[in-house]
């Protein structure tokens, strides 16, 4: 009988331990999103920054908060396995610059909006989805934004934004796939170079 109690106590403690571990991972991910958005807002609201300084600061944020190499790999889709390491290096470098310039333009409109954390859910061992709502007083609009947060060796990094159910990573991947199908991988490199030079 005593053995049975011990066994029940062990399983109960183990369950509590696992639940707490999972719960704390989700709380950490929520705090991470708040920190990321607050730091980004400071940059967008700092009117003294010129475009070059803003991009530099965003690049610094991206090093600490975004998993851009993973995102680059994901957006390459099926071509990821065919690309040589030289091609991947070249693509990753161009993609990073493209992404930061792209985000700088996209997020500028959201700088004055309020973000509220709704909840978070661990969907598998390394991925947590943090659900947020962004409020725009000016347009009287509410936008649902979900953040895919990847945890690796206790470090958290954002991998994707899903705005009203539309994944930015998936949209980007399908855009690259279309270019690869019509103009090959060189077409993607060329398109990224052209964009980066003109923005």
């Amino acid at each position, binding site marked *: 009988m005593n053995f049975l109690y011990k066994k029940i106590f062990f399983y109960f403690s183990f369950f509590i331990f696992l639940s707490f571990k999972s719960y704390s991972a989700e709380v950490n991910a929520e705090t991470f999103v708040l920190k990321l958005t607050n730091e980004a807002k400071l940059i967008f609201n700092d009117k003294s920054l010129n475009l070059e300084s803003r991009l530099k600061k965003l690049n610094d944020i991206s090093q600490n908060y975004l998993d851009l190499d*993973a995102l680059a*790999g*994901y957006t390459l*889709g099926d071509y*990821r396995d065919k690309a040589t390491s030289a091609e991947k290096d070249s693509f990753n470098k161009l993609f990073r610059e493209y992404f930061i*310039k*792209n985000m700088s*333009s*996209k997020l500028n*409109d959201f700088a004055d909006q309020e973000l509220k954390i709704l909840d978070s859910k661990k*969907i*598998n061992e390394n*991925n947590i*989805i943090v*659900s947020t709502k962004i409020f725009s007083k*000016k*347009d*009287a*609009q509410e936008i*649902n934004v*979900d953040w*895919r947060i990847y945890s690796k060796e206790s470090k958290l990094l954002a*991998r*994707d934004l*899903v705005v*009203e*159910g*539309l*994944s930015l*990573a*998936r*949209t980007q*991947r*399908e*855009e*690259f*796939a*279309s*270019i690869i199908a019509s103009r090959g991988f060189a077409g*993607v490199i060329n*398109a*990224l170079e052209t*964009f980066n030079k003109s923005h």
Partner: protein
Amino acid sequence: MKKTLLAFTFLVLFNSKTIYASNLPDCSESINRSFFAFNMAVDKYFIKPIAEIYNVLPVEARSSINNALLNIETTISVPNQILQGNFGEAVISISRFAINSTIGILGLFDPATALGLEKTNREDFGQTLAVWGIDHGCYAVAPFLGPTSPRDLVGRIVGIYGDYFYMVTTGDKTVLGENLGDTVYWVTKGTDLINFRSQNIKSSENLEKNSLDLYSTYKSLYLQRRENLIKNSKRAENQYGASEDDWKKIK
């Protein structure tokens, strides 16, 4: 003969193979790209300028118009909620419609939500066909209508003739002994288009500025949106499924 032709067309349009939306075949891409360019020009010179003027209206006015348009859309959603077997949602939709059309003054206000009747999912006949297991068919862009597929195009056509609002305006049915007339129908549909466009001005400008291939960006967004509508998913959960395997490959 007509029936055989119709059945044949149906089979050609909806091949039986299950296709995941992101891999949907673009059977007539060059024609689609031409229609896409045409639609973008129509938008640039006609629709967007009107939407920009519409945005000058106070937020409260636009919000009320949006409420009224959503209320009218209930006449499309309810039959499709029933056809999809969502009877509970249909009852809520009908209750919301009754409350908002009367107390809410023709749907301009939304007292139903305040009374605890939350908004239900928007349904159309294209979604119903998808729930019934009919595949998209090839991706297509229709002039003036934009991104679509044979399934959604059939859904739109059936949806017009099966819409109670169409019947009591352009059709020969009456509501409270009156037919509301063609003008009410076309003004409502025109306002709906401008209202939708006005809500997406910033995001579409961003896409135009930052996309490397605008055509495929719109294609991807359209397909993701349709997937979400069919699965009644508003958040990221719809993205876990197929894309999750790809994410797992990334270390």
